[in-house]
């Protein structure tokens, strides 16, 4: 067997790196394992059978003893615990942190209630996506956000540059990068009952997208009821010295049902949930409108603009984008990133950005961009894989229904 292989995570690493400084790329591509950054849970992963792989400069578990198929299914049936400490947690503080952040993202940050958050996109002057991020308004003078590991350097540089200019004009904002903390994602139907064993706070009062600072396992944590699987769950920011103990406590309280889960299953889960992987499904040149994230642009922001690239984005909302992100079901081999999409006459209409076999649906799912007009559900397409074309159809996402915990 030869390496015509296209492994999505591998791809996303290279593609992410390709966006960074060329010198950095050369350096990182030849980085040895010893140079990879390790989360505080690294030895814990290895002790639990984690297969460690390089990901965005970090040594991370791609899977443990279970297959990716079993891990994916177990997350939806029981639960998963992921170490996502490679992602970058950041606090913006100061009385002007909200207006500051609003210059860089599409969300209506001012309109968020205290302790609530949303998925948003950092845009550039052309309206393209620098990164996607979950942001939370803790208070009017404190925003907590998490950005992608692979985008950390460019995101921080971008924020810093704008922060300098903002402060020079008298704005009150500063940041703190939470390198002293680790991040665990607990996902699946057992997430809430298991976590409830470890805190006195009533978790049934914390809904999807909400944020709290509370004691878990006796330690001061930040939790956000969110995730990257489509399941109910939490992302828990814990002081790094307590991260291993918390991971152990979660696994123990679940009586083995919640299992450590790696990046492989995480990718299957997010794809089934129709969520973008930055670097694959969204890039510098993709606008949030094209990516199907128009819903994340607050009403007030649409009226007022005031974020980078607003002219381009608002015009696209008005006129409709020329390409759109959609989902597909298809026959034949699973489509992968870069598979060509054709109309039923064989004309090129777009490209797959993520794809694979869905462990839950037992069939191929994919997402990609097609020309507007071909984006409607049920549109027949051809997907070209290794020179052969296979039947596919545009399908609504998420592929697997999401189970976010919302007030009824």
């Amino acid at each position, binding site marked *: *067997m030869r*390496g*015509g*292989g*296209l492994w999505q995570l591998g791809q996303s690493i290279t593609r992410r790196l390709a966006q960074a400084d060329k010198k950095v790329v050369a350096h990182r591509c030849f980085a040895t394992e010893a140079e990879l950054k390790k989360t505080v849970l690294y030895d814990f992963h290895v002790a639990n059978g984690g297969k460690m792989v390089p990901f965005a400069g970090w040594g991370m578990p791609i899977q443990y003893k279970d297959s*990716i198929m079993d891990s994916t299914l177990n997350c939806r049936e029981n639960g998963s615990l992921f170490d996502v400490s490679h992602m970058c947690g950041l606090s913006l503080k100061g009385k002007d942190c909200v207006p500051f952040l609003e210059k860089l993202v599409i969300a209506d940050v001012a309109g968020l209630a205290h302790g609530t958050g949303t998925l948003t996109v950092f845009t550039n002057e052309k309206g393209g996506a620098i990164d996607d991020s979950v942001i939370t308004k803790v208070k009017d003078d404190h925003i907590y956000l998490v950005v992608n590991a692979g985008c950390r350097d460019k995101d921080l540089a971008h924020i810093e540059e704008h922060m300098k200019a903002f402060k020079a004009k008298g704005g009150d904002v500063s940041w703190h990068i939470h390198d002293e903390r680790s991040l665990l994602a607990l996902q699946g139907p057992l997430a809430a009952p298991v976590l409830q064993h470890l805190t006195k706070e009533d978790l049934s009062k914390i809904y999807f997208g909400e944020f709290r600072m509370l004691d878990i396992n006796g330690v001061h944590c930040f939790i956000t009821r969110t995730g990257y699987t489509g399941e109910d769950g939490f992302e828990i920011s814990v002081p790094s010295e307590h991260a291993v103990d918390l991971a152990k406590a979660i696994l123990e309280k679940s009586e083995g049902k919640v299992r450590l889960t790696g990046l492989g299953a995480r990718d299957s889960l997010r794809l089934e949930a129709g969520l973008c992987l930055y670097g694959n499904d969204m890039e510098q040149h993709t606008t949030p409108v094209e990516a199907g994230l128009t819903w994340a642009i607050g009403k007030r922001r649409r009226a007022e603009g005031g974020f980078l690239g607003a002219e381009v984005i608002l015009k696209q909302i008005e006129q409709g984008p020329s390409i759109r992100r959609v989902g597909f079901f298809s026959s*034949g081999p699973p489509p992968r990133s870069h598979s060509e999409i054709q109309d039923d006459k064989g004309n090129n209409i777009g490209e797959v950005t993520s794809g694979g076999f869905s462990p839950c649906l037992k069939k191929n799912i994919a997402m990609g961009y097609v020309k507007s007009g071909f984006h409607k559900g049920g549109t027949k397409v051809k997907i070209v894989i*290794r020179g052969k074309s296979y039947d596919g159809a545009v399908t609504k996402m998420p592929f697997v229904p999401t189970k976010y915990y919302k007030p009824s």
Partner: protein
Amino acid sequence: MASRLWASRAASYLRISVLHRGFSSVVKDLKYADSHEWVKVKGNSAIVGITDHAQDHLGDVVYVELPEVGAAVTQGGSFGAVESVKATSDINSPVSGKVVEINEELSNSPGLVNASPYENGWIIKVEMSSTDELTSLMDSDQYSKFCEEEDAKH
């Protein structure tokens, strides 16, 4: 294989490391290619599949792309592909010749490649154009050693 199979050129370029999961099985009378296919020879005819080591690294196989009966294959050349949840890998032919039979059961049950890599998960049967090529393949002991060395690199 580990490096190559473990995904992509990109991944191997980044030196993906894989912890050794223990010894995979080999079968004594088969011949092995360094790209992790096995071949079982009877006269001029050769049955081809992927090794236990290969299926173990690939994980759950979800699709096998088969050639047409009658297609020509060449030693070291790709004739199909195996798709798992995480990766796509080409399958190379360990011998040259003509495909005389394909394992059609794999269309409905690609998981046979995982469950029975050396028996029910066979992939194609080839009428060999030259049995001389077999000398360039490994026997089971050489192949076991080869796998250990390859895993140790990662």
